[in-house]
C-alpha cells in the first residue's frame, strides 16, 4: 500500500529532478546545450532567369562564404553567376570584425542592397536582399545545435508520467489521459523538429517542460482547467510556428511602432470601459464566450513600441540636449511621448486595479530605457518615479494600502487580506525537500491556485527541489533570451529580444517573489505555468519571436 502510493506520487518528481540535473549538467559543465554557428551561406532568394541555363552547369542554391568571396560572370570567381547583366568581377563579400561586408567591384550595372544602389562597402545582414544582375541573394545562417534526443522527448515523457500517476490515483478519466498524451506528442514533436532544424530548441525546451508541468497540475487541480489549457497549449504551439513563419522581416515592425502603441492603448481603454471584473481587477474583456485579458497582448505591443522608439531616439536620450543643473536631459519632444505613453498605460492599469500588471509595465519600462540609453541617471530617476507613483497609489487606493500592510505582517490579517499569502507560505514551507508527492497537496486551501498561485501548490507537491528546478528553468529561459539579444545584429532586434526576455523574467520574479512574500503579492500569471489562454498564447508569441530573432546574427 505504502510503496504503491510512493510510486504513484513521486515518479514524476523523480523524473523532473533528473531532467533538471541533466540540464544543469549540460548547461554548466559542458556548455553543450547552446546554439553553435556552423557557417554562413549565401543563398539564392529569387532568380528571374534560370541559373545555369546557358552554361550547362547545375544550378546551385547556396554557397559557403570564405574570408573573401568574389561574385561575377568569370569562371574564376568564387561564385559564378553566368548572367549577361553580371560583370566579370561584379562584387565581393568579405569578413570583417564579426560580420560580413559587401563591396561593389565597379560593376557595369551596379549592386543593389535592399533596392538601394551600393556605393560604399556595407554590412550584409541576414534578411538583407542583395541583388546582382537578375539574381537576388541573401545571407543565411546555418547553425548546428548539439542534439539531445532525451531532452527533446523529455517534456512529453514528463507529461505522460504525470498523467499516468494522476490516472492511477483516479484523478483523471481515460479521455483526459488521451488528450494529455496528444499534447505530450505535440510538445515533443515540436522540440524534435526544432532540434532537427538546428535552432530554437534551446528556447523552446524550457517552455515545453513548463507547459507539461502546467498541464499536469491543472488537470490535478481540476480536469476542467486541464482540458481548456490543453487547447491553449496547442494553440500556443501553433502561434509559435506561425510567428516564425509570418515574421519574415521583423524590421518592418519598426515603422508601425506608433500603431502598436495605439492598438495597445485602445485595448486598455476598452477594458476600462467594458471590462469585466475577475478576481478583484477589471482586466478582462468578454467577447461572446471568450474571455480575453488584453493586458497580456498589450505587453507585447508596448515592447514593440518601446524597442522602436528607443532605437530611433536612443542617442538623443543618451546624450541629452538640455542642461539642468549638473545633468544633461533629453528635450521634451524626445522624452515626452515616451513618458506619456507609459504614464497613460499605467494610469489605465491603475483604474483596472491590476497592480501586478502595472508593476510589471513599470519595471519593464525602466529596464528598457536604462538598457537603451546606458545611463544610470535614467535608471535612478525611473526608480525615483516608481517610488513616487507607488507612494501615490498607496495613499490614493485603499486596496494598495491593504496589500502593503498584508506584506509587512500577513499574520495580522490571517483571516482577511493575508489569507492567500499565508496559505501560500504554509504550502511552500511545509513541503520539505521533495514535497508530499503528486496529488497530495491541498489546492482547495489556496485561492487562485490555478492561476497566480500555482507555484505554491507545485512546491507543496514536488518540494523545494522542484521549486528550485522551476526557478532554474525560468532563469535558463531568460538567459537564453538575453543571449539572443546579445547576438542579434541590429539594435531594434536587440531591444526587442531584450524586451521579451526581461518581461518573462520580471513577470516570474514578481509573482514568485509575491507568493513567497519577498515582495507584496500582486496578481499576475506565472508565464507558461498558470492557467490562462491570453497569457500562454502571448508567451508563445514572444518565444517564437525570440527564436526568429536568433536567426539574425
Amino acid at each position: 500500500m505504502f510503496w504503491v502510493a510512493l510510486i504513484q506520487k513521486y515518479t514524476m518528481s523523480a523524473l523532473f529532478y533528473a531532467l533538471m540535473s541533466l540540464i544543469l549538467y549540460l548547461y554548466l559543465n559542458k556548455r553543450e546545450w547552446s546554439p553553435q554557428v556552423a557557417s554562413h551561406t549565401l543563398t539564392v532568394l529569387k532568380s528571374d532567369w534560370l541559373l545555369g541555363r546557358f552554361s550547362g552547369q547545375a544550378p546551385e542554391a547556396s554557397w559557403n562564404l570564405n574570408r573573401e568571396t568574389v561574385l561575377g560572370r568569370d569562371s574564376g570567381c568564387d561564385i559564378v553567376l553566368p548572367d549577361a547583366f553580371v560583370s566579370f568581377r561584379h562584387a565581393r563579400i568579405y569578413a570583417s570584425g564579426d560580420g560580413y561586408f559587401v563591396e561593389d567591384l565597379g560593376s557595369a550595372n551596379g549592386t543593389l542592397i535592399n533596392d538601394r544602389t551600393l556605393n560604399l562597402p556595407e554590412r550584409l545582414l541576414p534578411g538583407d536582399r542583395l541583388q546582382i544582375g537578375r539574381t537576388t541573394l541573401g545571407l543565411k545562417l546555418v547553425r548546428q545545435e548539439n542534439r539531445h534526443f532525451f531532452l527533446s522527448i523529455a517534456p512529453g515523457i514528463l507529461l505522460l508520467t504525470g498523467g499516468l500517476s494522476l490516472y492511477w490515483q483516479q484523478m483523471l478519466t481515460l479521455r483526459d489521459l488521451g488528450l494529455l498524451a496528444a499534447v505530450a506528442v505535440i510538445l515533443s514533436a515540436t522540440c524534435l523538429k526544432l532540434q532537427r532544424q538546428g535552432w530554437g530548441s534551446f528556447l523552446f525546451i524550457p517552455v515545453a517542460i513548463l507547459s507539461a508541468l502546467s498541464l499536469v497540475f491543472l488537470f490535478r487541480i481540476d480536469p476542467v482547467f486541464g482540458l481548456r489549457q490543453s487547447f491553449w497549449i496547442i494553440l500556443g504551439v501553433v502561434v509559435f510556428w506561425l510567428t516564425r513563419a509570418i515574421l519574415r522581416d521583423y524590421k518592418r515592425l519598426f515603422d508601425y511602432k506608433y500603431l502598436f502603441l495605439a492598438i495597445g492603448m485602445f485595448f486598455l481603454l476598452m477594458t476600462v470601459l467594458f471590462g469585466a471584473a475577475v478576481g478583484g481587477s477589471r482586466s478582462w474583456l468578454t467577447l461572446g464566450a471568450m474571455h480575453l485579458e488584453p493586458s497580456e497582448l498589450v505587453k507585447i505591443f508596448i515592447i514593440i513600441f518601446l524597442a522602436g522608439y528607443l532605437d530611433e531616439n536612443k542617442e538623443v536620450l543618451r546624450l541629452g540636449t538640455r542642461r539642468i543643473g549638473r545633468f544633461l536631459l533629453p528635450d521634451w519632444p524626445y522624452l515626452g511621448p515616451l513618458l506619456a505613453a507609459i504614464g497613460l498605460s499605467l494610469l489605465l492599469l491603475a483604474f483596472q486595479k491590476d497592480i501586478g500588471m502595472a508593476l510589471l509595465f513599470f519595471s519593464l519600462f525602466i529596464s528598457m530605457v536604462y538598457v537603451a540609453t546606458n545611463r544610470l541617471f535614467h535608471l535612478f530617476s525611473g526608480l525615483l518615479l516608481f517610488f513616487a507613483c507607488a507612494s501615490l497609489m498607496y495613499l490614493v487606493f485603499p486596496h494598495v494600502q491593504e496589500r502593503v500592510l498584508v506584506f509587512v505582517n500577513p499574520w495580522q490579517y490571517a483571516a482577511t487580506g493575508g489569507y492567500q499569502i499565508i496559505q501560500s507560505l504554509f504550502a511552500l514551507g511545509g513541503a520539505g525537500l521533495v514535497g508530499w508527492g503528486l496529488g497530495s497537496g491541498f489546492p482547495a486551501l489556496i485561492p487562485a491556485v490555478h492561476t497566480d498561485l500555482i507555484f505554491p501548490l507545485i512546491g507543496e507537491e514536488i518540494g523545494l527541489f522542484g521549486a528550485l528546478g522551476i526557478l532554474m528553468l525560468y532563469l535558463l529561459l531568460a538567459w537564453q533570451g538575453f543571449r539572443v539579444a546579445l547576438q542579434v545584429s541590429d539594435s531594434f532586434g536587440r531591444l526587442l529580444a531584450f524586451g521579451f526576455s526581461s518581461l518573462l523574467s520580471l513577470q516570474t520574479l514578481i509573482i514568485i517573489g509575491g507568493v513567497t512574500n519577498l515582495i507584496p503579492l500582486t496578481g499576475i500569471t506565472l508565464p507558461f505555468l498558470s492557467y490562462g489562454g491570453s497569457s500562454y498564447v502571448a508567451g508563445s508569441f514572444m518565444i517564437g519571436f525570440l527564436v526568429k530573432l536568433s536567426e539574425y546574427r
Partner: protein
Amino acid sequence: MSDPLRDTINKYRYFIAGCFLLLSLYLIYIVVARGDSLSQSSGNPRLWIVESRVLRGGIYDRQGEALAVSTGSGDQNNRSYPFGPLYAHIIGYDSRRLGKTGLEKAYDAELLGLKGSLVERLSVRWGLKGVRGNDLYLTIDNRLQQRAWDLLSPYTGAAVVLNPQTGEILALVSTPSFDPNEQSLENQWDKTSTDPGRPLLDRATQGLYPPGSTMKIVTASIGLVKDPGLPNETYDCTGEITIQGRVLHCWGVHGVVDLNSALAVSCDTYFAHLGLNIGSEDFTKGLESFGWGDPLSLDLPVSQVPLYQKSLQDPNGLAESAIGQGRILATPLYMALVDGAIANGGVMMQPYLVQQIRDPGSGVIWTAKPRVLRRVTSPQVADQVKQAMVGVVNSGTGTVANIPGLEVAGKTGSAENPGGAPHSWFVAFAPASNPQVAVCVMVEHGGEGSQVAGPIARQLIQLALSQGG
C-alpha cells in the same frame, strides 16, 4: 566590437540572474528554516485535514489511565475527555471552531503522527488506511489529580504536586475549570469565556499572586547564604517594626526569636528585619538565583515570575518583599518548584508533564529525562531551611499538615491582597529525610494558610506517598 547596448544587456542579465539567486535562497530559507513552524502552525488548515484522516493519539496518565481518547474515523473523528474539567488546563481542548490549547496544541504534531518516521509521516499525509498518531504518557497521577480536584473544587485556587528529585509533575489543578469536550465547550463558550471566575485561566501556571509567608523560606535561604552565622542570632519581635517612619505590623508579638522559631511562628518583623539586613542588592541577587525574572519553559503557557528591581531599592519595598507582600509575585507552580528545590538540596529540577511518547505499533519512541533547571542555593543552606520547615509542621503554624509517622516540612502563607480575605498558601514536602513529593496549594481569599490550604496539602502528601510506597 564594443557596443554600449550590448554592455548594458550583459549587465542586466547578471542582475536578473542575481534576483533569481536571491529568490532561490529565500525559498530555501522558507522551507529549511521556517518549514517546521509553518507546517505546525495552529492556523494551518492542513493539520485539520490530516486530523480527519488519522486517529489522533491518546493521552494517558502515568498508570495508563486514559485521559483523552479519539474514536471513530474521518469526519466522525471524535475527541473525548473522560475526566471532563479535571484536565481542561493541562490537556486543553481540540475544537475545530475554537482551536487547540494545552498539550493538545503543544504536542499536536506528535498526536497526529507528523513527527514519526518518514514512512509514517507520508502515510498520515496521504491518508492511508489505519494510520494512528502517537500516544502521550504523562507524569500526572490521575488519582492524585482527582483528589486534588475534589479537595480544591469548592474553592478558587490551584494545587501543584511534583517529585522534587526529578521535576515530574504529579498533579496540576486549577479551579474553577470547564468541560473541554468539544460539544459542551462550544455550546457554553460564550458563558465560559465571559465568566468572572475566569475558568479558562490556569491559575497554577499563569496566576501571579503574592506568595505571602511562604516567601520566608526564600528570604531565609538568602539570609543564610549571606550570613552563615544567622541561626545563632536572635531578634526581639515587639509586634511592629518602623522602617523610614512607616510602621509594619507583625501578626503577633513573638518576643525573642531566632531563625527556626521565627519561621515556625511566621514572624513578619523578623523576616522584614532580615530582608533589610541582607540589603536590596544581595536580596535581588538572591531572588535572581531562585529564578525570579527568568522565563520558565513548560509545554503549557507559563507566566514568568516578575522581578521588580525598583521596588526592592526602597527599604519598605524590600521589607515587604522579604515577607512575600507588596511587589513580589509568584505562580503556584513556581512556589512548588521553590519548595521542591529546598527539598532537593538546593537543586531546582525542570518541571515536565510528558513522560513518554509511544507509537501504537513500535512502542516507546521518546522518554523524558530529568534535567536540572538551576541551583538555587547550597545543600547546607537548603538543609538548614528544611530543618526549620520541619519545625513549622511539628510545632509552628503548620501543625495542620502533621502526619503521624512521617516527617513533613512545610510553610504556611497568608497573602494579603486588596481583593478581600488573604490568599491561603501552603507549601510542603515529605518525607523530610528523602523528599519524594513536594506540594503547593493556593486558595484565593482562603484566609489563613493553615486553615484551608494546609489540610489539602496534607491529604495530597498522604495519598502521593501511599501510592509511591
